[in-house]
């Protein structure tokens, strides 16, 4: 049974190799991606023998099962993948993704990295941020960042080592950029995304100021925000990294 399957798969592999060769002779990336010679899934994508063959070909192998057969198949695929000098999309995959342009990506990507990558133009100070906080944030977070139903953001008095540790931006958060990232994407809860970049910079500055990390007039912008040193920057143990090292 296994032998038969393997034989069938080998036959398909040879067909694919032929397909790649032909595609290569056309020598363009797009012809490889869209060549009709490559085994594309049936239009309906469900049921049928054809689909079964196709599935057997493309699926990564489940761990611990069908290993022997899989290795042979993988070996065959690996050999043929070397025939493909441009390393285009894997030929054994449907390749139905549509290219995303840099403009489209910029429009989608709202994430802010800890080194400041992704921070937009704009600026704000705690002085300006106070009014925005009191309009949009105070209902849940309480006056001056504490006493509401949401996470306390400032005003920690009890140390992290105490019986009643208070985990606020000032006492706990390792990166200032996180405040900007979260506020812009998630806040305020009633109208997330409603704040302008200047408003987010200003609220971020106000929260840092409430935690005695920056001054009331210090301007937060794409240059200054990633420079802010958070008091608990080194307060974390990267458990995943430790476990990976042990392996």
């Amino acid at each position: 049974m296994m032998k038969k399957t393997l034989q069938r798969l080998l036959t398909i592999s040879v067909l694919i190799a032929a397909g790649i060769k032909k595609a290569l002779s056309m020598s363009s990336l797009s012809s490889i991606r869209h060549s009709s010679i490559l085994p594309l899934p049936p239009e309906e994508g469900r049921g049928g023998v054809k689909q079964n063959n196709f599935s057997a070909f493309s699926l990564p192998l489940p761990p611990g099962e069908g290993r022997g057969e899989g290795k042979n198949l993988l070996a065959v695929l690996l050999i043929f993948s070397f025939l493909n000098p441009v390393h285009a999309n894997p030929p054994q995959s449907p390749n139905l993704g549509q290219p995303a342009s840099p403009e489209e990506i910029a429009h989608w990507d709202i994430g802010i990295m800890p080194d400041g990558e992704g921070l937009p133009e704009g600026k704000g100070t705690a002085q300006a941020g106070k009014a925005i906080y009191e309009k949009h944030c105070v209902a849940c977070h309480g006056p001056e960042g504490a006493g509401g139903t949401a996470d306390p953001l400032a005003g920690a008095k009890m140390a992290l080592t105490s019986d009643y540790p208070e985990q606020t931006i000032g006492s706990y958060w390792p990166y200032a950029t996180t405040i900007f990232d979260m506020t812009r994407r998630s806040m305020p809860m009633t109208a997330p995304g409603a704040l302008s970049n200047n408003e987010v910079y200003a609220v971020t500055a106000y929260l840092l100021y409430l935690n005695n990390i920056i001054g009331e007039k210090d301007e937060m912008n794409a240059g200054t925000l990633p420079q802010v040193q958070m008091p608990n920057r080194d307060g974390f143990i990267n458990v995943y990294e430790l476990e990976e090292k042990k392996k």
Partner: protein
Amino acid sequence: MKKNPHMPDVDDLQSIAGNGLLDRRLFLKTGLTFSVATLAASAVPKVISAKDIDSPIDPANPPWLHEPGAPFSIYGTPSKYEDEVVRFPTANRDVSGNGVSWTPLHKLEGTITPSGLHFERHHNGVPQVDPAQHKLLIHGLVRNPSFFNIEDLLRYPMQSRICFVECGGNSNAGWNKSPAKAEAGYFHGLVSCSEWTGVPLATILNEVGVTEKAKWLITEGADAFAMNISIPIEKAMQDGMLALYQNGERIRPENGYPLRLILPGWEGVLNVKWLRRLKATDKPIMARNETSRYTELQPDGKARMFTFVMEAKSLITSPSANMILKQPGLYQITGLAWSGRGKIKEVEVSADGGKSWAEAELQEPVLSQSLTRFRVPWQWNGKPAILKSRATDETGYVQPERDKLIAERGRHGFFHYNAIVTWKIDEEGVVNHIYDEKDITKTTDDISIDSGWD
């Protein structure tokens, strides 16, 4: 209790651990399935004891025997008599969509959680995503940044796998000084188990050509929180799934329709719902949910971060908190065990507070990173009993006692509570949650350290 002619005399049953625990194979050997079910049913919650549902109907001639039944339905729902088998929501009072709802584990059997009872954790409500308007963008350190729409993803070769999803904050009331008094599912039920079907993430990542520099994937959901979090690319390639189906049907909105990430065995928060973006990077984004929350403060003031794997855990679901055993006799103790590191190897049950342990029967098939049902027969003699279960997974990891867990981690980590759960049964048959024998009489100084789900 009426004498059951099919049942061996209880005096003939050999205990294999203290206080009446019997050989796990007893029910299998003697084929007492029916009798056992009858007995186990007497361990019902207080609210629906058998005498409350007594009715004047002649069971030999019930009305449903003599009148046509309801017509066909286009989508089935549970019996109206099961209307107490529901999720238990606890949400922020200012933001109704921010909170959790708990799976009623104590009212369920088997290992698969019905989709409508799968636990929920939302940060700002359940979005009603139109699949025709939804796209997944994969970009960053990839050769071919691409959009994938749902219709196209449905054309990809798929795989199915059964696995649990558990919130990192499940069972967090265990860190409190006093034992929580809720039903088992309503403080351990942020875990559910489904068959997920979808496209292996590796298929798509290979297509877009992740570069060698890429070590992390920053994920983002399409909810009003735009929830984002970083996952190691290694895990994504190993067994990550772009899930489209749950238990055979398209994923429910509250579980991430039309597309969610499944990372078997890892914290629920990483299994991002309503998935819309994956950005390959060389470092994590340090999002709020991997810094401010989902990190665990330790007694020395340092916090554990990127604690992805859910460690082995178990609990007895019947009998469990707030149930009543109506009379002494033969019962089946049953519960669930699971481990994010692989298969459950063994579950032991104690009826004498941990002095002696009996091996429980594991329901086949035992699947990796899945809820595993265990069962063991027990002869309750009507005297106080203290029940515990203890799971061991295939890596040899043993579920810790609460004292040990707290000695190691302190009480302020909030997440990753997986200690042994203890139920005390008193002479009346009432089941109570305790930490240890002393707790039952101790006056409560219940200062909750549960800081909520904001």
